[in-house]
């Protein structure tokens, strides 16, 4: 099951016009967090907020809708959100914390919840984990290289970055520049190369652009609590849904990309094991489903 266990898979977007305007795709993470905050299902959330430096995110505890909106949109570089989780619980006193995580962060979160070896009373305070689809992530210097050297754009002028249709897109106020995603290869962080998870298989709700038309996101609800919160948001009209496109640019595309990420990672895992390097995952001949995230 390359997409992990899920309850439902739909195409969705936030109905709020402001969220649509500032969010990356369907604004699911932003919309769902704002809704959960309004409904007191969470009392704050750890998000990749803005820092002093353009396009360099900083893990931030958002306590208001405005702070969540300020973190909308994808930054294609590292934001160690798990770092702020203890802060959110201890310093900010959150009893029901939300958090946005990419798959590797989701894995850190879930391991900490099942084995909270050195982390006191944080595991039980996480009420909602929104997992974002992720093919790979880039160190900040890699990102700078793409923008300045490959796209030839001043960092300050960039309004949005996007990956889609095989290309890396850079939006400025009056220009749209792209270069093939292949040119980013070699710039991704090394840890991503053994990652078996594109779709945040262990999140409460996972979402991302892959498989959805422009302005929409694909959403999978996975846990009971994820399904409940998402359904409430849909019932409240905060999020609208349509059936997933089963075809080539929908579910097929998502399945294809998730599979190819897993296959590439398995090759690298097997290679590293042969070299005697440590990898926390099983080799392909050690597991029943060679693509399982184990």
């Amino acid at each position, binding site marked *: 099951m390359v997409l*992990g*266990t899920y309850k439902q898979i739909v195409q969705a977007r936030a109905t709020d016009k402001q969220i649509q305007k500032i969010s990356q795709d369907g604004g699911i993470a932003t919309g769902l967090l704002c809704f959960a905050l309004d409904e007191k299902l969470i009392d704050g959330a750890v998000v990749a907020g803005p820092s002093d430096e353009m396009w360099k995110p900083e*893990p931030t505890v958002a306590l208001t809708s405005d702070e969540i909106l300020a973190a909308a949109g994808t930054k294609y*570089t*590292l*934001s*160690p*959100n*798990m*770092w*702020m*989780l*203890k*802060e959110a619980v201890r310093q900010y006193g959150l009893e029901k914390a939300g958090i946005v*995580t990419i798959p*590797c*962060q989701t*894995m*850190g*979160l*879930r*391991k*900490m*919840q*099942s*084995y*909270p*070896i*050195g*982390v*006191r*009373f*944080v*595991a*039980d305070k996480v009420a909602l984990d929104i997992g974002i689809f992720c093919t790979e*992530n880039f*160190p*900040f*210097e890699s990102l700078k290289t793409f923008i300045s050297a490959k796209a030839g754009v001043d960092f300050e002028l960039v309004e949005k970055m996007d990956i889609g249709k095989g290309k890396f897109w850079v939006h400025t106020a009056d220009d749209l520049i792209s270069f093939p995603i292949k040119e980013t290869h070699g710039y991704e*962080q*090394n*840890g*991503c*190369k*053994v*990652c078996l998870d594109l779709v945040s*298989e*262990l999140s409460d709700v996972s979402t991302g652009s892959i498989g959805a038309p422009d302005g929409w996101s694909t959403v999978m609800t*996975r*846990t*009971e609590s994820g399904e409940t919160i998402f359904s409430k948001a849909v019932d409240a009209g905060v999020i609208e849904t349509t059936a997933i496109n089963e075809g080539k640019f929908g579910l097929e595309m998502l399945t294809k990309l998730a599979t190819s990420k897993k296959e590439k990672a398995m090759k690298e895992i097997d290679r*590293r094991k042969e070299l005697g*390097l*440590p*990898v*926390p*995952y099983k080799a392909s001949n050690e597991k029943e489903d060679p693509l*399982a*995230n*184990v």
Partner: protein
Amino acid sequence: MLARIKEFLGMEAKPKEVASEQEVEKVAEEEKAKPRIGYVHLSGCTGDVMSLSENYDILAPLLTEMVDIVYGQTLADVWEMPEMDLVLIEGSVCLQDDHSMHELMEAREKAGLVVAFGSCAATGCFTRYSRGGQQANPNHESFVPIGDLIKVDLAMPGCPPSPEIIAKTVVAVINGDMDYLQPMMDLVGYTEACGCDLQLKVVNQALCIGCGTCAMSCPTRAVGMTNGRPEVNSDRCVKCGVCYIQCPRSWWPAERIKQDLGL
């Protein structure tokens, strides 16, 4: 009662587990010989037993009804160490302290299972910094994890181990849930811990993904994140090993996580 504890901990919440829970309760209620537990306190700050005691509200019935605490400085009024099924050992052992050395060896002899309870016992933790030359005995200089001297069956590091992991482990021991305990058996071999393991065993091995779990779990805020990589302030590191143990790239309990999430 066990079901209540499990519910509190969110363990095995799935309905299909109900049958086995009932079985376990039945076993618990039968007046079989209760496991005899001992507690030995060597060189540590007593934080580990305090963390254990934070569970008294949920574990009190379990600790009183389901096990017999047969030995321990503050827990049982006995001088002679009896035979025990399981002994929790808190603290590292001082090589110059004959009394501690003797108690450790005796505990190994008299206990079926030895648990290195807390990071001092498991990795040496902050006692690794001892250089002797202090009162009450300037000669007490060399402190090592108990695994350096005796065979350890289970390691539960942490400075201190969280109340939740203690409770989860107790439930797993009573249920004979070896799958849950496996990582803690594997951790027995992890006796030389340091914040620098993040660099040596994760970053150097091309495994770090900058998630920040290490920095979150550090009990002394010795770990920060710079440019998406852990940066350890060695002046603050107590060598408890928790950062590396919580790292999703050190070991990966996939099956258990899915079970816990109902996926």
